[in-house]
């Protein structure tokens, strides 16, 4: 019996994980959750940006990471476009970034902000860290034209911004290497930086939060749900929290099963 528990077919685990997602999505229970301090910090900073500030938003995730990060970006943009008067420059160092930026802008449509005056989509710049360092140095050189092909000097939003030194904050949504922005934006120009990232890279980025190099951080889908609650716009991320609970229970249950069976059969092993 116990030996069987040690060698459960992986496919049974996979099916249970799927069920743990499907069932609560179909009939949600609404288990409450608390707000993490790092998400609160992102919200507080954005909420307190004075009118007329200029911020840059880096949309750097790929389709793979989108389910975790896209809801974060959407929650933040909803907050910015509907409750704040802040100028926003969208940039990207990921090939898939511009398409997600367009998708985000479509999804939050209905606001009164004007393209070119309140926000601008500068598009994609290749070269990864080199690209960040290049646009931080000079927006006009790095992005001579915006995503729509217009000369960026013709847009009123670009009038008083030349380089990263003119930014009041930068937010980056990425699943790869936020430290590049720490080096090139926060480190080089002292611009306050916050990131929305997928859960797995949170632990390696906590040192940057603790040392103050990042003023805040959003952790995966939960971070998105927290931001939705903070900005009083509960949406898709909030709805997924139950499924998150159940899948965690499945993983923990299998860890317990693995241990019980190992300890139960250990006697036999020692005999061998």
């Amino acid at each position, binding site marked *: 019996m116990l030996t069987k528990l040690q060698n459960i077919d992986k496919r049974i685990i996979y099916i249970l994980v*799927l069920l743990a997602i499907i069932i609560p*999505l179909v009939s949600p229970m609404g288990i409450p959750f608390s707000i993490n301090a790092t998400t609160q910090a992102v919200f507080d900073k954005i909420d307190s940006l004075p009118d007329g500030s200029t911020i840059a938003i880096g949309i750097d995730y790929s389709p793979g990471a989108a389910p*975790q990060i896209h809801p974060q970006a959407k929650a933040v943009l909803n907050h910015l476009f509907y409750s704040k008067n802040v100028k926003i420059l969208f940039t990207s160092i990921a090939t898939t970034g511009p398409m997600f930026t367009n998708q985000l802008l479509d999804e939050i449509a209905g606001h009164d902000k004007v393209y070119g005056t309140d926000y601008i989509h500068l598009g994609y710049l290749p070269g990864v860290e080199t690209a960040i360092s290049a646009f931080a140095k000079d927006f006009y050189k790095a992005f*001579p034209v915006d995503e729509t092909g217009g000369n960026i000097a013709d847009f009123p939003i670009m009038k008083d911004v030349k380089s990263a030194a003119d930014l009041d904050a930068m937010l980056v949504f990425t699943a790869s290497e936020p430290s590049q922005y720490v080096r090139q934006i926060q480190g080089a120009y002292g611009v306050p930086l916050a990131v929305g990232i997928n859960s*797995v890279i949170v*632990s390696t980025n906590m040192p940057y939060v603790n040392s103050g190099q990042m003023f805040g951080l959003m952790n*995966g889908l939960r971070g998105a749900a927290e931001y939705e609650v903070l900005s009083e716009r509960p949406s898709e991320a909030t709805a997924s929290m139950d*499924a*998150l609970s159940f*899948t965690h229970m499945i993983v923990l249950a299998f860890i317990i099963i693995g241990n019980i069976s190992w300890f139960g059969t250990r006697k036999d092993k020692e005999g061998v």
Partner: protein
Amino acid sequence: MLGTVGTWLAAIGTLAMMSFAWRENPFYRAFEHIYIGIGAGHATVMGWQNIQSNLIRPLQVDRHFLSLVPLVLGLLLYTRFIKGQAYLSRYPIAVLVGVGTGLTLRGTVGSQLVEQVKATMIPLNNINNIILVLGTTATVLFFYFTAKKSNKAMGVTSKIGRYIMMIAFGATFGNAVMGRMSMMIGRVTFLLRDWLSIL
């Protein structure tokens, strides 16, 4: 109409990929190859756009003739197909390697060494700070490669280093569970809501 076709296509692709978890099968193989093809094609198009904006535009519009240098370097990459001239392809590579090493050196010292050391220079007046300082020290010393085996002090610190790394690896793994599950929630939501309209 096109939207519906798109959703069906996306749903079929999603199921094909997922079917790998059950077993490797022809359905998965077909979509694996489609995905590789599209991904590589997309990357090539992005590369073409880079050449447009960083090479052709500066040459044509700004008359920035220094851009001829990367043009030549880029073309030299292809000398590897010419017998006897393949060594020329090392020059563009040397530039790439130089840029990469330069960025590594200048970026790493500050943010991963000095900043981290500085962040750990904290007063030892509470248990958290003590754990931070001792834990960081022990972990760094775990990687000391030239220590003699007989060195007891090194043995103890490296053991503490191992334990504290185990805490970190467990935490990172546990924290990743949330992210990975979120991705599957995203896919299932797509199948149930956008495709089957159940939600």
